[in-house]
């Protein structure tokens, strides 16, 4: 089948929104399909430019090229195609659930409420016309129902090559692999290290857009006297490197603020039979991580996280058990590419 994977993207920003597209392409090709990825540069920085950009997506001629189109990041779901499958990964959230928060990009004025209403109406119409609508998490599915009145099915995105991840002995290191950004809150993890009582170690891996944030993490580690137990690898690490780090980790940590999905780091850890330490306000992550079952959920403050780290360090049997549960949970949820490809092409 000739399949087009269409998404908007901010150039040179990686992360989950890109992985889901790039990995799906690889898997579809493995299944013998012809796939073309269409990334269209787009952004929501200027609220008034959102509708014209959406119109641009709407005008794209795709029908003659593809038998099926799968869309991802907004506003790609507004493209026209008779076999449009939407794999919805998030709204333009500042016009949805973040409207009544400090993240709202515009004043709460009638003109701006009208813009919000227009965006919601356009989104809803585009979703209703889709052949199928999937989301990457329950949180996003709930938002689709609440704001757009659209029902959807959760289709958790698997990691690219689960087989890459192996489980070795549980070492001393808590590993956190994701973009290094303020909202991923690596600083909480570094601060937690000051309060640990065991010789537990912390490794942060990933690139960030703010050099200052990376510096502040190193500074905090030095000031906290834990620099010898905190490693910051601020670079893009390969999948193999990632797997190697998780293979002998004690556990993973992933503490983003109000993430849309459970996050690839959580699932990668689970494939390596590692549990994840997270926090209750991490959004979709807690869909996967249940406290004391597939990981530990601690309050989003350093002492509580330190306690969780220490608990795992001093009770390896617990770390092993939670890790095993996480691995089992992944297979229960059917997070595998065969299932995903089957559903997207149904």
């Amino acid at each position, binding site marked *: 089948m000739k399949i087009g994977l269409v998404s908007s993207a901010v150039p*040179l920003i990686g992360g989950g929104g890109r992985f889901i597209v790039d990995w799906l392409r690889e898997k579809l090709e493995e299944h013998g399909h012809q796939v073309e990825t269409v990334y269209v*540069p787009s*952004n929501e*920085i200027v609220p008034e430019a959102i509708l014209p950009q959406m119109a641009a997506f709407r*005008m794209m001629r795709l029908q003659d090229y593809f038998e099926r189109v799968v869309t991802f990041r907004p506003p790609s779901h507004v493209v026209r195609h008779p076999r449009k499958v939407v794999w919805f990964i998030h709204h333009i959230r500042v016009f949805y659930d973040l409207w009544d928060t400090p993240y709202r990009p515009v004043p709460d004025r009638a003109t701006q409420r009208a813009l919000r209403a227009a965006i919601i109406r356009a989104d809803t119409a585009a979703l209703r016309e889709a052949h199928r609508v999937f989301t990457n998490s329950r949180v996003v599915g709930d938002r689709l129902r609440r704001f757009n009145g659209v029902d959807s099915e959760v289709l958790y995105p698997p990691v690219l090559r689960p087989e890459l991840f192996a489980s070795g002995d549980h070492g001393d290191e808590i590993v956190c692999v994701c973009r290094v950004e303020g909202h991923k809150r690596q600083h909480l993890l570094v601060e937690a290290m000051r309060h640990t009582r065991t010789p537990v170690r912390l490794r942060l891996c990933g690139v960030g857009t703010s050099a200052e944030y990376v510096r502040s993490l190193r500074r905090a580690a030095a000031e906290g006297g834990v620099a010898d137990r905190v490693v910051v690898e601020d670079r893009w690490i390969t999948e193999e490197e990632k797997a190697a780090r998780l293979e002998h980790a004690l556990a993973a940590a992933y503490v983003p603020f109000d993430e849309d999905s459970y996050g690839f780091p959580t699932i990668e850890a689970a494939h390596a039979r590692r549990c994840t330490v997270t926090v209750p306000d991490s959004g979709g992550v807690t869909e996967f991580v249940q406290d004391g079952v597939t990981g530990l959920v601690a309050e989003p403050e350093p002492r509580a996280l330190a306690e969780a780290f220490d608990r795992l360090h001093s009770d390896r049997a617990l770390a092993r058990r939670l890790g095993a549960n996480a691995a089992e949970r992944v297979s229960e949820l059917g997070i595998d590419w065969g299932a995903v490809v089957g559903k997207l092409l149904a």
Partner: protein
Amino acid sequence: MKVLVLSTMVPFVRGGAEELCDHLVRNLRLRRGVEAEAMRIPFTWDPAEGLVEEMLIARSLGIFNVDRLIPLKFPAYLAPHPNKVLWLLHQYRQAYDLFDAGQSNIGTDARGDALRAMIRTADDRAFREARRIFTLSPTGADRLRRYNGFGAEILPQPLNDPELFPGGEAGGYVLASGRVGLGKRQHLLVRAMRHAPGLRLVVAGPPDRPEDADDLRRLAAEEGVEDRLTLDLRFLPRADLARLVNGATAVAYLPFDEDSVGYVTMEAFHAGKPVLTTSDAGGVLEIVRDGETGVVCEPTPEALGAALSALAAEPARAARLGRDARALLASRGITWPATIEKLLA
């Protein structure tokens, strides 16, 4: 510096422009402090009426987190960005020279005139906005000047894998590499062989159409030169092609009125091989100069035969021409690092 290369795509079709786009990004990334990626937006030009929407789409893109935009093709170069450097591979030629040549999907009626005016106006604006404009060849630059009144610098496509073409001992054969078809006139070379006794010729490259391969084989039999002719008519892996170039005494390349110097010429020159071409070859003649870096003759079997004989008979002269050819190529400085340097200046 964060660089976005923006081009267009016809889904599932790949050609030279896609290759160039990939190599450009690869080479941008090799440079310290540069992050680069390419995005390609779908482009449909039929029916011509829809070109308006295609232009509107490109002009409506929201490009953020990019310090420099390098668009390659119409209508991608309409995308708004304050720091835009065009490497112009394609305008919509059916609105310009191909229209004049009667080869356009745009009508000759009033509507067609209106569409061409819009394309022209949009193009001109994009060219005005650009910090710099480069074209691949003088032909592209001439076209831009003639139709849009904009000057451009010429930035030819560099060799993607120069390390494969270090040169080597002359193996006593002339190589005709590149695509095989009527336009590249390998048949003239085969006919020339009867005028160049003892000459060994290797034709290596993918035929444009299966008939082109058959025609060449039939011609070799008719001319009775099969024992001196090797036909390797396929898409050769780069290493195989390089081995043939490095071992040749000279390379023959006879396109008709080519836009640019051509990869074949660059590969030969890089490997220190002289190039035999014809006086009507177009852009190739920019660097292939008779008696300096190669041989230029009339496009007849007789003239080509004489030239081939002379090259084969005097390997030392061929080697000297080849050395000078290599030096000339090097002096032009058409390498990826130099190209990237210009695009990011």
